[in-house]
């Protein structure tokens, strides 16, 4: 067992646990959107950020991927943590205004409106990548992935075309935290315009 402190309380973690695993084990609340226990953590949404402190030194880390170390002091509700969280929620409200889940979660942490312009009122996808991770890691296929980069990043099947690699298992839909995958799903498993598997046979 590895002993350390969360919010000044002593906690014990098993080998290989992350900070988030330990915090949740002890009932300490940390919000997450891109985390799911069935796939590897990726540290993309950054909502699970916590502050490590040692005297004057401090550092913010993503708790879902930070391996526990003996003797560290973890704080989940500092000013810096709240500042990051607040801005992420506010930006999510403008980027994915149609997601009820995001609205509820943001409201829980005190963010109910956004000062940013809404460019797409129907958007629900925040490109957390859970769908593509579950497809690759659990289903064992890679029918979808995040494509492009930066502001243009989105979830899609290869070459933005329907693919017969998709077996329509629906894992991506059920893991999606915002319900966005329901809409994307149809464009993934539509009738392939090109039989990739036949070409390679």
């Amino acid at each position: 067992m590895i002993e350390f402190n969360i919010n000044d309380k002593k906690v014990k973690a098993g080998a290989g646990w992350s900070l988030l695993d330990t915090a949740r084990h002890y009932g300490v609340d940390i919000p997450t959107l891109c985390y799911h226990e069935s796939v590897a953590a990726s540290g993309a949404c950054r909502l699970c950020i916590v502050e490590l402190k040692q005297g004057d030194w401090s550092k913010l880390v993503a708790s879902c991927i930070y391996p526990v170390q003996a003797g560290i002091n973890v704080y989940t509700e500092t000013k810096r943590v709240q500042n990051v969280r607040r801005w992420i929620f506010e930006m999510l409200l403008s980027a994915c205004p149609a997601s009820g889940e995001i609205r509820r979660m943001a409201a829980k942490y005190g963010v109910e409106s956004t000062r940013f312009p809404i460019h797409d009122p129907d958007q629900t996808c925040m490109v957390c990548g859970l769908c593509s991770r579950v497809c690759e890691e659990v289903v064992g296929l890679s029918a979808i992935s995040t494509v492009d980069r930066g502001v243009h990043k989105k979830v899609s099947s290869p070459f933005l075309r329907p693919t017969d690699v998709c077996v329509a298992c629906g894992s991506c839909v059920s893991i999606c935290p915002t319900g966005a995958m329901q809409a994307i799903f149809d464009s993934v498993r539509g009738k392939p315009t090109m039989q990739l598997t036949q070409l390679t046979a």
Partner: protein
Amino acid sequence: MANPGTALKREDWRLKSAQDLAALQNQILASRDPERPEIVVCHGSGCMANGSPKVTDALRAALTEAGIDAKVMPGIKTTGCQGFCSRGPLVLIRPQGLFYEQVKPKDVTEIVERTIMAGEPIERLLYKLPETGEPVLTEQEIPFYNLQQRIVLHNIGKIDPADITDTIAAGGYQALAQALTAMDPEQVVAEIEKSGLRGRGGAGFPTGRKWRSALNAVAKKGRPIYVVVNGDEGDPGAFMDRTIMEGDPHAVLEGLIIGAYALGASQGYLYVRAEYPLAIKHLEIAMSQARELGLLGENILNSGFSFEVQINRGAGAFVCGESTALFTSIEGKPGNPRPKYVRSVEEGLWGRPTVLNNVETWANIPLIIGNGSDWYAGLGVPHSTGTKVFSLVGKVNNVGLVEVPMGATISRIVEEIGGGVPDGSPFKAVQTGGPSGGCIPYHLKNTPVDFDSLTQAGSMMGSGAMIVMDEGDCVVDVGRYFLRFLEEESCGKCLPCRLGLTRMREILDNFSRGQGSEEDIEDLISLAQAVQDGALCALGTSAPNPVLTTIRYFKEEYLAHVRDRRCPAGVCKELITYAIDPELCTGCASCARQCPNNCISGEKKKPHVIDAALCIRCGICKETCKFDAVKVS
């Protein structure tokens, strides 16, 4: 490649010991006549773009035509970037060491007739001292060069990078021979530790400590371990690494092989961006020539140590210069960074211990091994040893590549070596470290340029780009430029970076239109801190630096935008108007002819006027006017 000495068969070229290498060097030097005239033409990317290959061709033709006796026939050598890019194409005449600038193909006949045959300098082509207008003959008399301390760049501009005999004549691979024959790997690592060398890629992590941690990781996890060169130089305005790879590829290779020997690696990677075709070409030539001489590959110099290296081309993503994104890119996956809570020296390329260093860092290794760590630690300042290469660009007279000891002040680099701002006014700010760095204002011009002082000033060393700005540059516009760049270049994985950079840019867009309030400036700072604290990799955590430093040092200018709806630098289009001064306007109408929106009118030889309602504020009229009659307010 040129035949090294008198060896006849290819297999005979393989050097079998350090003595062989020394013998080859002596043989090459003995075969050269130091008094033989030589014309050196700069073939760095800058000079090539300015037409230096045409100058070289013209020189070849002119020499043949002049029918000079074979005994005194001068050699023509093409080298990597000589540094003084704004004066290119550059031509040096040896042995006199004459320095000719801005040479055109039409000048070459005169060069051959007067300088080569008659031995007299051509005044028109010489560099003139800016204060006195006096022409000077040689490089050593030019302040741009004689105020520098060229250590890493010592070979560049002197050797032909595509000919290994030139490198060997200049002492190349001697440090490798010394490491392989006289030092054990532990001694090499200890030497690097003692030198105090810090990584030249930007963060300044001590190289020796990185190597030591990698050795510890290998002790725990076993081999293989990989060594990687980060040649994915992507900062706007940076061209240090490109110049080193183009101009002295063997220095990078030698450093890498020494590192591989010290760390016990048998495979290395050169990750070079595909936008650097000349660098890739020269590295490929260097690799094959080193292989032929037995300096790379199986059983190097018969020491029993074998090492292979391959080139990976980056496909144009800025984020792939970040270490973990670079690894996933080499692995054949999309270049997304991964969290670095487990360090790359323990879990890097293919999950193995990996040492990744920047091009300039690797090029420093042979110098440290060859001259000793004490010599190296004596250069620069105690916590930042050695020298640093900077690319000096923007509103500065002497655009080019400079190398100075660490701790030289900004004033020395920008004003003394760089010659200051073209119109003679003091510079407004210097942006160091590219999009991840910050702006340092004029009143801090005595800040020593070393890792710690720059961080203290809110900027960072970065890879070494220095962008000089004058009063005509608007800090809001500069912030927008860097954010737009990073918005496109962010991998998009983590939310603070993907969403935050766009939101920050949108706030600045509003400022540039005169919208927003003082409260918005405070919000911008708060959001910038959230991005700094929250982003996954160094691209995101450092992205707010340009904005934060400009708010810190130029808050008045931000306030002018939001409070007074005014852009003091006259850059933000929606806050400025163009007007013609009737006193100065001669009515030549050249601005009216150039105006793309046809909004300038007036009678011939009478003052013209701009229709402000139609004006798109492109600034072409101002550039066109010979009488400085177009004013911005």
